[in-house]
């Protein structure tokens, strides 16, 4: 039918890897080509994607609408929560106790562990953070006024930061050798660098994504610096994104 190297139906593991964005660009494109050639299979993948998105939505909704209790709690109680409102008060009360206990445990634990964690993909998420909820911030290049963005978060969160390099060429045209580095420094002290990740490549959508623990950013303004690192012959690219994480959970974006 085509020159697609993926001739046999992808395994469930491959589907899972695709949905988790763990495939290389070439593998992902090959998988997508198979999907276009096999619409019934594509619909199955769409159903899995919908299931996954629905699960995320439930957790996100609970974290926003309730007292942002732990992810595990939110998940198991999600459906019952909105079908039986009488249990809601009990659930919230129990959750409050659970949050206090968790906070105490986390406080003790954090005293001995490094607060700085940044990873490039969900698959690299440390197990200790997998129970934490994720918040998302997307920062785009803006011109004119200050591009400062305030992200409001509370609790022990992992912030997903997506950066879009504003280059006049596509990801494909940049080629595989085009890489970026991301640095985070305090806004009032440019020398105080708390994080550096290099060798980053944008995904097919053009975004560079990193995950950072909110805890290390809260209560201060930061500058995220995005710069191209290779190849040297390319036009150098550098861009800054201010960001502030407010510790007040009730504040608005």
């Amino acid at each position, binding site marked *: 039918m085509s020159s697609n190297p993926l001739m046999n139906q992808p395994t469930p593991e491959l589907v899972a890897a695709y949905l988790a964005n763990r495939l290389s660009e070439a593998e992902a494109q090959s998988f*997508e080509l198979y999907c276009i050639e096999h619409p019934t299979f594509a619909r199955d993948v769409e159903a899995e994607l*919908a299931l996954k998105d629905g699960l995320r939505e*439930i957790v996100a909704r609970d974290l926003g609408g309730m007292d942002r209790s732990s992810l595990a709690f939110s998940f198991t109680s999600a459906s019952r929560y909105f079908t039986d409102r009488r249990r809601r008060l009990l659930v919230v009360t129990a959750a409050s106790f659970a949050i206090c206990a968790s906070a105490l445990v986390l406080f003790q634990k954090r005293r001995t562990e490094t607060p700085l964690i940044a990873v490039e993909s969900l698959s690299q998420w440390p197990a200790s953070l997998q129970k934490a909820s994720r918040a998302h911030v997307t920062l785009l290049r803006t011109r004119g006024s200050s591009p400062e963005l305030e992200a409001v978060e509370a609790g022990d969160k992992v912030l997903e930061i997506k950066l879009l390099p504003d280059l006049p060429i596509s990801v*494909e045209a940049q080629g595989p050798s085009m890489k970026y580095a991301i640095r985070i420094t305090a806004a009032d002290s440019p020398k105080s660098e708390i994080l550096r990740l290099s060798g980053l490549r944008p995904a097919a*959508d053009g975004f560079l994504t990193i995950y950072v623990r909110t805890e290390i950013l809260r209560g201060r303004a930061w500058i995220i610096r995005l710069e191209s690192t290779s190849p040297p012959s390319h036009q150098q690219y550098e861009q800054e994104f201010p960001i502030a994480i407010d510790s007040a959970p009730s504040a608005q974006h």
Partner: protein
Amino acid sequence: MDGVNHSQKHEITDSALCERIRFGDTQAEGLLIERLQPGLRLVLYRATGGNRDLASELSQETLLVVLKRLRDTGLNDPDGLAAFAAQTARNLAIAHRRKDGRRRTDIDHEALDAIPTPGRDSHSQVELSTLGVIVAQTLDQLPTERDRSVLKRFYLQEEDKEKICRDLQLSDLAFNQILFRARGRFRTLLSAAGLEKRDLLDAGETQ
């Protein structure tokens, strides 16, 4: 697809479809759309960073471009139809991103908030979409806490199957059965809600 049954649809090759469209066969155009659209939506869902609305809109646009090309000049290699459609979709997504970037001259918090962030809605949003409600019902119908845990760890935390099986002392077969059961119930509920025949990626509308 009036006049064309299920088995016939799959007997028609891409090459034959292209030829029929070239000669003005509108029924063949319908078949082409039905064939390409689910895969194109996946391509564009990823290419737009998980923006369902944009992916849906661009998939329509892609089909228009492909159809126009097939009506006008056809393809040099009709067997490469799927690859041509995929590349057209990606090009449209890239063009849209560039256009969007040029338009943006000032910070627009509303626009930033509207940018799709898979897995995270705004804090103030408390209502679940149709999809969220159906997934919640699916969870309710799973027989054990262990089944819910498998779903959470596999789809939400994206853990490896092997690790989940090891932790929960599940065999490969048992793991597959849990997922199969969950997917089956999900599809049944989707169908009961009249969503299965619609675009699944459009099911995010709030009830």
